[in-house]
């Protein structure tokens, strides 16, 4: 039940912000500070999420095979690999390190 509540709140919230952008008269969100903050918020969230999902197990900080996988994804990104290849390299390297007992 809790999960359905989370799904419902997220679905309504995410649709509302998408629609708001299309309906809001241009200018309302055009203040430089608001635009700057809107560009920076995803940076902060994505950085924190990437770090947490790479280095955490529940509430503990851990260093395991995922770190190697995400490092491989970072290398793929630097080499300008396509999106799918970036994700695939993380998965393959993580599985590989685990198979080797890492």
């Amino acid at each position, binding site marked *: 039940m809790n999960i359905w509540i989370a799904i419902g*709140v*997220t679905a309504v919230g995410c649709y509302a912000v*998408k629609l708001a952008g*299309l309906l809001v008269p*241009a200018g309302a*969100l055009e203040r430089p500070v608001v635009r*700057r903050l809107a560009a920076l918020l995803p940076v902060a969230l994505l950085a924190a999420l990437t770090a*947490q999902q790479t280095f955490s197990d529940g509430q503990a900080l851990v260093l395991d095979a995922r770190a190697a996988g995400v490092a491989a994804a*970072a290398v793929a990104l630097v080499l300008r690999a396509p999106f799918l290849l970036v994700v695939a390299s993380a998965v393959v390297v993580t599985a590989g390190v685990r198979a080797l007992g890492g």
Partner: protein
Amino acid sequence: MRDDGGGKPDGAVVRDALGVGIAVGLSGFAFGVTSAGSGLTLLQTCALSLLVFTGASQFALVGALAAGGSPFTAAAGAFFLGVRNAFYGLRLSQLLALPRAVRPFAAQWVIDETAAVSLAQPTRRGARIGFVVTGLSLYLLWNLTTLLGALGAEAIGDTDAWGLDAAGPAVFLALLAPMLRAGTERTVAGLAVLLGLGLLPVLPAGVPVLVAALAAPAVLWARGRGSASRGDAPEGDR
């Protein structure tokens, strides 16, 4: 932003749009596996892709739920990640000039990928074609591969052994990387990582990410003060 010539041929726009739609659409498989592996049912997993349809928010939600976060902190994190779509919508509504009646239907497709493809087109016609082709191909494929991934998660068994728990952070990293060109963005990202990891052991699940989001206003404020005292322009990055 004119409808006259000088733009790319329609075929080239369609090819670009399909390229993005298919590549990202296929990664719905990773979401399906991750979501099912996090304990969500098939119906819940598919409902997320059909109704939320913004990948980073979906990964964030299942990640937070799997970590034991409350439904509201989990949804709050997913929602804040979705807020950027409002700003895409603002740009797209000028660019596409959609009739009011169409907007509620177009809204669900206002995401990173459709915005990226549409904004890259030099003409309104190109932008509209790019938006529709990217939106349609990505929506269909994302939902289909979510279903297959959720079904496959059972067959695969221990998804960790297959390294699929690394797919979520890799997706986040791929979305984040193009945003890290300027110094301010890198400072925000660095501070957010410190806050997110540092607070993880001491705050309830889901909350550290929300606190880490404060890195954005904090860095903006600090840079605004710094540049004001030095007397340079506030946008002087690097």
